[in-house]
């Protein structure tokens, strides 16, 4: 066998993480930073400290001269001069050339291109921060209210400013507080924000009163230095003559059948003084005039007071609460008396039993809950809808609040619907609040304690789908038909029951028959006991929700799936037609086919006589020749559509080497069986071979070439053509736009190579190839030109001229034998030629506009100068809009519109050019080796993917529209090669 299975990772180093939060370690060919000092966020670092870096291998000292390796003061763009020296066992010392400044935050960054002696690179940019020795205590630089100020708002917040950030751990109720002249403290929430603390009193402050804000010496900075002396600043609140009033009461006036355990509440127009609500100010008595003793409970803002009877109320008795007026009446925090209020009357019943939850979906502890969740908790009695809201139900996802809609369904079920889809594999907690502030029944009996429901979302982010055969609205179905349901993933068989999959006539009467499961529980077949009635409707319904059909991962359908179809008169006795291919290779080109043990595809198409359907769950793939996957296991992973099946043979179930034949069978719904032709092929055995990447392949994308000799680099020419730049740079935005576009193009190309936007490897599946915008220091690398017209065409072409149709050209390098290709020549013309795309798209635009607007025109009409647009830099908004500091939040709608127009065009263009860049570089690392294995990757004679119909990067040709929207990927076998999971000998 010429393809070999290979370890995905090469030598690598097994070192640990850097300690600064980067977790991608032990990637193939990557150096690892094992540890460093100072540690991230270290404080009290000595001014003469040496920054010590420990790697898992001996490093190339020169690599530390890379421009992305630096020490800077936080927020500065100026490098601190340092000297690197190499120690033993992978140690590098970084000595600042002069002492660091005291009490200063520093950031140290290590370039991703930092390399060892053999050329392996770090591959991730690493940085950590530290603060130098600090012995200066923090001091207060200001308070938002001037000392001695008067008429200060009673309802506002206060800000205390410091000369440095305060350690949040030192902020407590006793280290910073608000008090009045009597020494009474007023509860506040104190929040550190940068170098300030925001103080927000919970309740309104009393009017015309002297207050002081106090910060004690226990407040300290991150280094532990505390305030040298206590701070105090005083002010007086404005006068308050506004009388409070009652806004709301509970229970409602004249309510009946209330619980003897209820605690009535009054909600006021402003914060009240709870101490003024007592027996002389609030009359609480029963229908016989017996006084009910009570205590008062208040919310934090003191706007709602709860009356807590100190004796049990009697059953079936009428009670009255009435605020008394006069000198002893209840008052607000400023002493203003309550406005006259109607008495509250209610009657108790006999129900004093607390509600309790009797059922929930999901159940607590469940671990396979889909992200599209609708949680429901059912109580044993009717619930008060007034208490079903966001104040009584809290939904946390990974410990943080998540926006939900909370509603009462029917009378006894609380439904919680997260507005946005939940993240996968995440712990979620739904808490229904108990106690007097929580859920309660209609009588006012409260949920005794908090009811908490914890569950974990499944690791599967997708919802199940099902293909029901016969499909919905099908007609003239043969009476001899059976039913088939093909799910898109393995299902939990325990959830595929007659009560979750309803197979009935049109009136809901169940049909008798036999159910069978196959293909790893992806397929349910139902064979009716007798033939279906002619000219009749039948239904197949799959129920949704946690009590319906569920994937093996636990995910359930978000809504029921239904197929209603009608039978005809006759039975069907005609067998279906079955066509099968391997890797989509038609019969006239598959002689002598040699396949790897896995990774190739089997494609099946079927057809049946008019109005009859093939049971796509019946596909039977017979592989004969040795040990290999079963038909069941192949179908379990297949992509199945109406009349189509595609299967990729998994590396988990490879074929043994030798000669094989494949025959595919399919049965229609009436049981007639069809057969494909027999396809012979050979599977070859693995052997050792070379890897395309012995080190991370670096690719410098060059935008500095001027191959049309017009005095401006070709990339800039493109920017001007497209409208991203303006000649003369009138608004000073050209550099920003060039960086935006280039970074975007590289981000797209990086994504295609399974890397992050900045080139960082995202997982062990990342390809060992990294795009750069500049020349790397001392490291071998490929270069590719980006910009301008195809140098092999007329270089004087302008808007309206004809495109060569060639978007890029690069050296083809079988197995990437040379990592230093220079795809920058003018003859032959190498590189990526965005202007050719521009020429053709503008040609189409000129043909169709204005009767039709192309996708390109929909983005570029606004900015492309030749199309009548206003290029970036010419609009009055551009200087403000086209900067990294543009504040969208505070921008005008016109500014936002301009920003959106330019950014949308930029994003679309970068998607297009990024795909082309990834394509050309793909050629230079060995794609797509022509022919079958062992030497080829099923490339065609032009070195592209054969029969590329999907969004494949290495297709021979590409279209603008497709590249703007479709998720372009390397074909599986190309990606396997790039990941070095298969090798060419």
């Amino acid at each position, binding site marked *: 066998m010429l393809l070999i299975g290979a370890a995905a990772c090469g030598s690598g180093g097994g070192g640990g993480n850097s300690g600064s939060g980067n977790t991608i370690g032990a990637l193939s060919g990557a150096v690892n930073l094992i540890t460093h000092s100072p540690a991230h966020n270290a404080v009290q670092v000595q001014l003469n400290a040496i920054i010590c870096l420990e790697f898992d291998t001996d490093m190339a000292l020169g690599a530390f001269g890379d421009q992305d390796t630096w020490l800077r003061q936080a927020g500065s763009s100026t490098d601190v001069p340092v000297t690197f020296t190499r120690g033993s066992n992978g140690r590098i010392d970084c000595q600042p050339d002069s002492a660091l400044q005291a009490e200063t935050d520093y950031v140290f960054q290590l370039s991703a291109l930092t390399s060892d002696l053999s050329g392996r690179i770090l591959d991730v940019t690493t940085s950590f921060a530290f603060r130098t020795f600090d012995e200066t205590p923090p001091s207060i630089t200001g308070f938002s209210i001037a000392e001695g100020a008067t008429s200060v708002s009673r309802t506002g917040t206060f800000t205390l400013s410091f000369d440095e950030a305060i350690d949040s751990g030192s902020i407590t109720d006793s280290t910073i507080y608000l008090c009045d002249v009597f020494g009474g403290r007023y509860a506040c929430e104190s929040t550190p924000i940068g170098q300030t603390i925001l103080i927000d009193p919970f309740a309104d402050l009393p009017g015309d009163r002297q207050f002081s804000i106090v910060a004690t010496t226990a407040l300290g900075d991150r280094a532990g230095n505390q305030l040298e002396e206590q701070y105090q600043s005083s002010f007086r609140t404005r006068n308050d003559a506004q009388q409070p009033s009652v806004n709301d009461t509970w229970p409602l006036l004249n309510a009946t059948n209330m619980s003897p355990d209820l605690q009535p509440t009054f909600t006021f127009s402003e914060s009240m003084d709870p101490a003024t609500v007592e027996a002389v100010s609030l009359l609480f008595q029963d229908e016989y005039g017996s006084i009910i003793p009570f205590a008062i409970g208040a919310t934090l803002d003191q706007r709602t007071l709860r009356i807590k009877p100190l004796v049990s109320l009697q059953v079936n008795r009428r009670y009255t609460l009435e605020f008394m007026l006069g000198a002893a009446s209840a008052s607000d925090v400023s002493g203003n008396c309550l406005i006259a209020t109607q008495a509250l009357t209610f009657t108790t019943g006999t129900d004093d039993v607390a509600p309790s939850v009797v059922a929930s979906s999901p159940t607590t502890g469940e671990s396979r809950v889909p992200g599209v969740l609708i949680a429901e908790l059912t109580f044993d009695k009717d619930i008060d809808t007034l208490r079903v*809201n*966001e104040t009584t139900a809290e939904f946390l996802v990974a410990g943080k609040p998540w*926006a939900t*809609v*909370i509603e009462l369904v029917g009378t006894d079920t609380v439904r919680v619907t997260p*507005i*946005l*889809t939940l993240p996968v594999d995440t712990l979620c907690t739904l808490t229904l609040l108990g106690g007097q502030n929580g859920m309660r029944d209609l009588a006012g009996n409260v949920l005794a304690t908090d009811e908490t429901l914890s569950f974990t979302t499944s690791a599967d982010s997708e*919802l199940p789908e099902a293909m029901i055969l016969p499909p919905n609205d099908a007609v003239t179905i043969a009476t001899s038909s059976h039913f088939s349901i093909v799910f898109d993933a393995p299902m939990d068989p325990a959830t595929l029951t007659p009560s979750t999959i309803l197979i009935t006539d049109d009136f809901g009467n169940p049909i008798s028959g036999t159910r069978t499961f196959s293909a790893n529980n992806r397929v349910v077949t139902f064979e009716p006991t007798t033939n279906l009635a002619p000219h009749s409707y039948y239904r197949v319904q799959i129920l949704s929700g946690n009590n319906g059909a569920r994937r093996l991962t636990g995910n359930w359908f978000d*809504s029921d799936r239904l197929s209603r179809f009608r039978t005809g008169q006759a039975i069907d006795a005609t067998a279906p037609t079955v066509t099968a291919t391997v890797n989509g290779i038609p019969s006239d080109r598959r002689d002598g086919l040699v396949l790897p043990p896995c990774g190739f595809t089997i494609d099946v198409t079927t057809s049946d006589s008019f109005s009859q359907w093939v049971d796509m769950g019946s596909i039977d793939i017979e592989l004969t020749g040795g040990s290999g996957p079963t038909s069941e296991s192949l179908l379990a992973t297949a992509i199945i559509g*109406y009349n*189509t099946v595609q299967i990729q043979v998994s590396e988990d179930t490879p074929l043994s080497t030798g000669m094989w034949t494949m025959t595919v069978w399919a049965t229609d719904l009436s049981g007639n069986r069809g057969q494909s032709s027999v396809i012979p092929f050979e599977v070859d055995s693995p052997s050792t071979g070379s890897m395309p990447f012995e080190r991370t392949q670096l690719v410098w994308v060059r935008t500095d070439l001027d191959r049309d000799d017009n005095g401006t680099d070709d990339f800039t020419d493109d920017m001007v053509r497209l409208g991203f730049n303006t000649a003369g740079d009138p608004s000073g935005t050209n550099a920003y736009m060039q960086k*935006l*576009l280039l*970074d*975007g193009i590289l*981000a797209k190309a990086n994504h295609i190579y399974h890397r992050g936007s900045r080139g960082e490897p995202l997982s062990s599946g990342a390809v060992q190839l990294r795009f750069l915008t500049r020349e790397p220091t001392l490291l*071998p690398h490929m270069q590719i030109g980006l910009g301008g017209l195809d140098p092999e065409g007329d270089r004087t072409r302008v808007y309206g001229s004809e*495109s060569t*149709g*060639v*978007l890029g*050209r*690069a*050296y*083809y390098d079988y197995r990437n*034998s*040379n*990592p230093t*290709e220079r795809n920058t020549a003018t003859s*032959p013309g190498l590189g990526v030629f965005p202007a050719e795309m521009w020429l053709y798209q503008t040609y*189409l635009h000129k*043909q*169709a506009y204005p009767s039709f*607007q192309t*996708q390109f025109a*929909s983005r570029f009409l606004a900015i492309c100068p030749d199309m009548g647009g206003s290029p970036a830099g010419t609009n009055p908004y551009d200087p403000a809009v086209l900067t*990294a500091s543009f504040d*969208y939040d505070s921008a005008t709608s016109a500014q936002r519109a301009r920003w*959106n127009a330019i*950014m949308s065009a*930029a*994003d679309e263009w970068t*998607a297009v050019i*990024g795909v082309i860049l990834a394509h*050309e570089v793909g*050629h230079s690392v060995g794609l797509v080796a*022509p022919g079958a294995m062992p030497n080829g990757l099923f490339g065609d*004679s*032009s*070195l592209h993917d054969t029969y590329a*119909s*999907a969004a494949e990067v290495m297709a*021979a*040709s*590409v*279209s603008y*529209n497709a590249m703007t929207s*479709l*998720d372009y990927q390397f074909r599986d076998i190309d990606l396997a090669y790039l990941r070095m999971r298969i090798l060419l000998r």
Partner: protein
Amino acid sequence: MNYRTQKATLLALLLPTLAVAQDQASTMTRLCQKADVIVRATVTSSVHPTALLHQLTLQSNHVLKGQVGASFTLTEPAGKCCGRSLFALSVGETRILFLKRLGPTLHTLGGGRGVLASTPNLLTHVQALLAAPTTNATAHLLAACVNHAEPRIADDAALALATLPNLSLTPLERSAITSSLLQSVQRGWTRTAALADVAARLGDANMIDSIMPIYLEATREDQALLLRKALKRCPTQLVAERMPAFVGSTRRSNLRAAALMTELPAAAARAAMTNLLQRPNHPQVQMHLCEGLLAAGVSAASLSPMVPHAVLQLAVARQNRRPTFRNVQPLR
């Protein structure tokens, strides 16, 4: 072996260049228009007159367009190159060649896309393209080919149709476009891009009615995105008016409908968004619709009776959120 040394020794083995083509610029339809000579020919010799050049001699079997001798030569830079796919031809092989005359010599047109396998299907198709007397006739021919079993013909037909200056199709041909589009969306093909463009160019109520359910039910998000972009380029008022008729009950299709409506011009979509908002919907759908209506100038107060408070609150909070993009990062 030292890494750098080993690699350096292989430098000399570099093969020449490859190219990726703009497919719409190199369809058979376009190549038929642009080529000076189209010929079915067989390679009789393959030589390298210099290290840098590769020269083929071909015997012409069937001249489909223009004039060429019984035997002619084609020369290209040596090495493998998709833009110059003569490198893949060996003696005895027959191809359909699209050639352009530059001075006294002939050159391939459209790179590898202009060198076709000489199959009966491709030959017949090229002959039919050349025989089409008018643009309309070409359109009818192409529409009949969008479901062709030969992928190159079906792909090219869709691509070429999308770029014809005038596009007028019969109901049967429109039906073929729709069925091809449905199949392409289901299989995740790039052909969807061209077919969606064709559909958008036709853009009448019938075509919108055909595309809408395919869009709403597309399994793949990227295919749905293509269709959404196409629908946005149809007459917006028509799209907004037709959409409510197709909205189903599933969360996914309603999310799709909301995404489309919120991207249409506000004046056209406001009524449709309000219509959709008044139906029973998942809160996420409601939130997107609220975002669209808020952006269209509808006040939060007027939306308040129609949706739960939490939904409106989140929509308002997201209203000023800076959009994010797939590739560009404006804050960097």
